[in-house]
């Protein structure tokens, strides 16, 4: 705290009242400048990568010779009306080319979709089941299991990669979808989140169903689950995002190019085609595009969730 206060003072934040910068015209201008400046910093890497991905590998230069395109030049000589980047004609062909240069690229996409979808469905489903059980049903050793989950909450997954890997060897799961997916179902965070949701969920609905003689699973599937769709979907989006971007786990589990996910594929791409910036950028942007689209669709939920978790935290 103290260190932070000092940092803030040293960097000259004295003029900022903290309640927005709209109070005085000067502060307003400074605030706008900061926002626009940082927005440019956020967008610039993606924008530059996009420009590079549009450039052909080689083009005719001024002397009429075929030569590599300078994709680092400043200014980038863009002409949107003549469809030019870096002074040469823009093309989308790199996006098609990468599927030919690295024939597994399509497979990696498929693997990533399978991995992320399976992890999302399994994680949300099984942890919701267990969360309901922990919230509402009494069974022997319930407190014991709950404490066990609580104790593992702080253990970083990076720290158990080695024994998990040896376990996958013993199970014969290395380089398989089940090896990639099954261990990822364990997600204590979601279990706790959903348990809290069920604890706060009004008991009356369930009691009415039980009075009518509905069994536990019937009550759960026909009364509880339909009402839990929103938090399940919210958690699901995060799990999907995390699985899509996951790096260390597929790096360890897969050694076969057919089993790579996109992130590991990118690492392979980097080591094999390290001078082909155009391909690398096309591949990177293609790999990340689905997540940006999902984020833009659900932007209000993402921002809203980030804000509410900050209040609770």
């Amino acid at each position: 705290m103290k260190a932070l206060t000092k940092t803030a003072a040293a960097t000259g934040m004295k003029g900022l009242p903290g309640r927005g910068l709209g109070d005085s015209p000067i502060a307003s201008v400074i605030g706008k400048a900061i926002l626009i400046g940082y927005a440019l910093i956020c967008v610039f890497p993606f924008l530059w990568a996009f420009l590079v991905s549009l450039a052909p590998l080689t083009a005719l230069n001024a002397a009429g010779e075929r030569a590599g395109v300078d994709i680092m030049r400043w200014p980038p000589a863009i002409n949107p009306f003549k469809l030019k980047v870096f002074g040469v004609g823009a093309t989308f062909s790199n996006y098609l080319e990468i599927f030919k240069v690295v024939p597994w690229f399509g497979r990696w996409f498929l693997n990533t979709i399978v991995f992320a979808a399976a992890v999302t469905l399994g994680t949300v489903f099984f942890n919701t089941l267990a969360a309901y059980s922990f919230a509402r049903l009494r069974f022997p050793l319930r407190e014991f299991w709950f404490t066990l989950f609580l104790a593992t909450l702080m253990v970083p997954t990076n720290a158990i990669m080695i024994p998990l890997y040896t376990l996958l060897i013993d199970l014969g799961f290395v380089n398989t979808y089940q090896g990639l997916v099954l261990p990822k179902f364990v997600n204590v965070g979601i279990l706790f989140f959903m348990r809290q949701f069920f604890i706060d969920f009004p008991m009356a609905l369930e009691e009415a169903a039980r009075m009518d003689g509905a069994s536990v699973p019937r009550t759960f599937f026909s009364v509880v689950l339909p009402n839990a769709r929103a938090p399940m979907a919210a958690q699901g989006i995060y799990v999907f995002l995390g699985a899509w971007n996951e790096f260390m786990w597929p790096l360890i589990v897969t050694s076969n190019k057919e089993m790579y996910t996109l992130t590991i594929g990118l690492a392979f791409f980097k080591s094999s085609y390290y001078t082909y910036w155009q391909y690398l950028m096309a591949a990177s942007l293609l790999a990340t595009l689905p997540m940006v689209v999902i984020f833009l669709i659900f932007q209000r939920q993402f921002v809203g969730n980030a804000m509410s978790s900050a209040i609770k935290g």
Partner: protein
Amino acid sequence: MKSRTQEAAWGYLLAFPAIAGAVLFLVYPIAKGLWLGLTDYNPLSSTSFTVSLDIGEELALQYGIGSGTEDRATADELFDATEFVEYGLAIDLSDAQRAALQSFDERAMLDDLYAGKLAGKTTLGQLLTRYLPRDQALFKYKAAMVGLGNFKKMLGDQYFWITLGNSFMFAIIVVTLQTFLSVLLAIAANGKNRSAHFFKVVFFIPSVTSSAAISMIFWMLYSKPGIINRLFGLLGFQAVDWLNNTATALPSVMALNIWTTAGFFMITFLAGLQNIPDELYECAAIEGAPPATVFFRITLPMLRPQILYVVIMGTIGCLQVFDQVYFLIPNMRNATYAFYIYKNAFQYGNMGYASALAAVFMVIILVITSIQRKVIRESAY
């Protein structure tokens, strides 16, 4: 209401997948990891018995025995398990192993081989144990217990200290700068302007894109002929090989890390700012407090819960940084602790030592988290 037993049965049934998963993929690995940390387990050194071979091919290669029925008699005469392993495959055997191989059932193996049952690759360990009546354990790789040897080794391992130091430096610098930056951004965005949502979305994007793709993009930006050097060149600076230079590699990755997370944490602070009651500011205005006083006496103290949250999340995240280091840092001098664990386990095969490193890592994270949780609980108001 149904009976209690029925409720308990359903309770277990619903919770079973999660409990089984946690025991198998969380509790058991934690225990096994701690145990491995006390051994010299190295799967690469066990290659002697995990070497894969096609026994039919080996016989043809080493004894010139073919696969036809007429070759069977020659095979019976020539093939001896001990000799095959020691001289044919050049694997050193212990006395116990040699004695055990005396009872190897050569005839049964050859029967299976000529019946076509042993086609394809298998491992030597599997082949030997299948035709041994006893002492199979001798031909499975077993790690030796080294007690606290791995932990003693760490004390003298310079890369243990270097990478641990790098990780802490990474966490301290990144957390400090990103907290400051995200507070600044939040204050700037907390006005009455209608464009606030637009900026939130733009600042958020780096945190939803994959670290692999982002690392790749920054790899290009940071490269020696890259655009960052070009822009600096316009200002008259010399080109720097950002990622290959040991002085600039880690700071470059730190900058990238701040870039990916600052926007996300800015939203955290924005939520905190909007939670500060207006009355506080109105009082300050009536009292005529200067902006600096307002900031340090109202804004910062009221943001305390969010600052703690960001510092905790940031510290834990930073200490575990792996992806960006894997992608961008070529020199072990600049690597982080998480990467050093990975390197030991999956590239050198020193899984015992790496497990000990991981145990230390786990303790560090647990200590930091519990200290910070305590701080949070004390400061909760």
